[in-house]
């Protein structure tokens, strides 16, 4: 029932190089120039495992387990931070995209309900927050997550983001076989692209490691205001670039990072500034997908 074994597809086998300036222009409805999509990542961190990220290292280093302080720091995002972020989505009437671990569906039901109530798009994430290269049965993990989302929301997810954007060589093949329509791990363009798989092609919707609070706050250690400043710099450039052909900008946030009291306002200020521009659409990933496929059908 699974696809036949084939040789491994390298990224360059999945798509050929293409310069953005040399493509046929993409056009959005009603003269809009660009699309912004905002992805909230809700994860469950297993207290018995090493934590995916840490804010505090133990005295004299090392990584003693269990790591309760960093577990608790992440848990804050789901107990408190998410609800603060929600106010921004409500105030500016923007659709959210929830990238959620399959296991988090049961663990954080109030978050799931709040997202359903607002008609957010649910996209698959790992079943747990662990690198896909370390997941024993990737197909089962992808399938279980889709089933958990379908059960909670009544609809199967169409998009998926790897945990930490991680993929194996096989991930795009498995995703299309398991009924997903798009992936967002490939941060290689400002426009959606088609990726070949061993069966039918799958779309990649532009996600970001640049306007992403994990990279900015936990790895690069920027001040909180840099989230706003970078988002607006990114926005102004993409807006200018999109004069003749539409582009997509992603904004990524995590409740335990941008949901901290001292950071939230910089997310709000970024959204506030972008929302004032009349020719910018706030869409979900599925809306971007449907629009793109309409003018660029599967090759």
């Amino acid at each position, binding site marked *: 029932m699974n696809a036949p074994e084939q040789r491994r597809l390298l990224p360059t086998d999945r798509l050929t190089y293409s310069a953005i300036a040399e493509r046929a222009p993409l056009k959005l409805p009603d003269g809009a120039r660009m699309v912004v999509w905002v992805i909230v990542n809700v994860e469950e961190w297993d207290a018995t495992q090493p934590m995916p990220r840490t804010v*505090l290292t133990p005295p004299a*280093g090392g990584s003693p387990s269990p790591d*309760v302080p960093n577990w608790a720091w992440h*848990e*804050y995002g789901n*107990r408190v931070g998410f609800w603060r972020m929600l106010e921004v989505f409500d105030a500016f009437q923007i659709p959210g995209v929830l990238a959620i671990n399959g296991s988090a569906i049961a663990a954080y039901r109030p978050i799931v309900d709040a997202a359903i109530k607002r008609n957010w798009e649910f996209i698959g994430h790992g079943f747990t927050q662990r690198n896909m290269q370390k997941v024993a049965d990737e197909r089962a993990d992808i399938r279980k997550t889709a089933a958990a989302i379908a059960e909670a929301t009544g609809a199967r997810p169409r998009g998926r983001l790897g945990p930490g954007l991680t993929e194996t060589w096989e991930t795009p093949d498995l995703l299309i076989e398991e009924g997903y329509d798009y992936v967002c791990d490939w941060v290689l363009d400002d426009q959606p692209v088609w990726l070949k798989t061993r069966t039918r092609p799958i779309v990649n919707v532009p996600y970001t490691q640049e306007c992403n609070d994990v990279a900015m706050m936990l790895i690069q250690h920027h001040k909180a205001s840099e989230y706003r400043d970078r988002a607006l710099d990114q926005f102004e450039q993409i807006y200018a670039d999109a004069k003749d052909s539409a582009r997509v900008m992603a904004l990524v946030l995590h409740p335990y990072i941008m949901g901290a009291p*001292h950071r939230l306002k910089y997310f709000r200020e970024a959204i506030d500034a972008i929302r004032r521009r009349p020719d910018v659409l706030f869409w979900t990933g599925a809306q971007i997908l449907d629009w793109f496929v309409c003018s660029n059908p599967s090759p």
Partner: protein
Amino acid sequence: MADHMIPRERCEFSAIVDRPPLKLPGGARLVLWSIVNYEVWDIARPMARQVIPAPTGQPLLPDVPNWSWHEYGMRVGAWRFFDLFERLGIRPTLATNARVCEDYPRVAEQAKRDGWEFMGHAYDQMPIHRHDDQAGMINKSMDILERFTGKRPVGWLGPGLTQTLDTPELLVAAGVKYIGDWVYDDEPTTIRTANGSLVTLPYTVELNDIPMMIVQHHESDYLLKRAIDQFDRLYAEGKERAKIMALAIHPYISGQPHRIKYLEAIYDYVNRFEGVLHWNGAEILDWYQSARARKAAA
């Protein structure tokens, strides 16, 4: 070792918006909980933190430069803290290694004289996982602090907030009433242990000079900026429900000459607002337990 509860088994998930708000007395909006950390870094072991790794990055012993960088905090930086809190009339929580009472009696005496709350913080500064007899270390630490101050501490903070899965049981058995290790909420919560319940108070790894200055390498003035941003948000939210803002500082970091003015400026800023209480952990615990008792009686 028997199976111990994982954090999720100690307390159900709860979204803050689904709880009835807690209210502070007199219409106050926010408690500023100041926590000073005094520690002993044993020269025979690797240092708890390093401001400068050895050339080529090798961990070498003894690590005199980083030991003395920390020692500066006890010799000099701590006295900037004592001056500040005396001037403001604030009695902060002192998370202190019990060994501070033995190695730095002058410092511990000053904190006692100034009426600071002593909070258990292990015997000396190493991850709690490395103790073969954790229960013994916890009891010894609590006993030393009780003998020194005449009162058994009610609070506990793990060194670097570290815990093993059974730490909450051991702490309750030793007489601890609240911990700061669970930074998972803006409000106090109650968690289960096999020896009875334990309160968590919202300590912080966000407004804390170790992650900010030593891990994330922010500039000195960013402590003030982040504190103002944190305060503004929590103060606004404090209109609807009581908020606790923790501020965690270490004398070898925030007690440095180039950083102390930003710490002082935080207090200048928040004291311009009505409805801000300066409470230590024991006072927050008393308020929370009274609120719970009233709720149970209702």
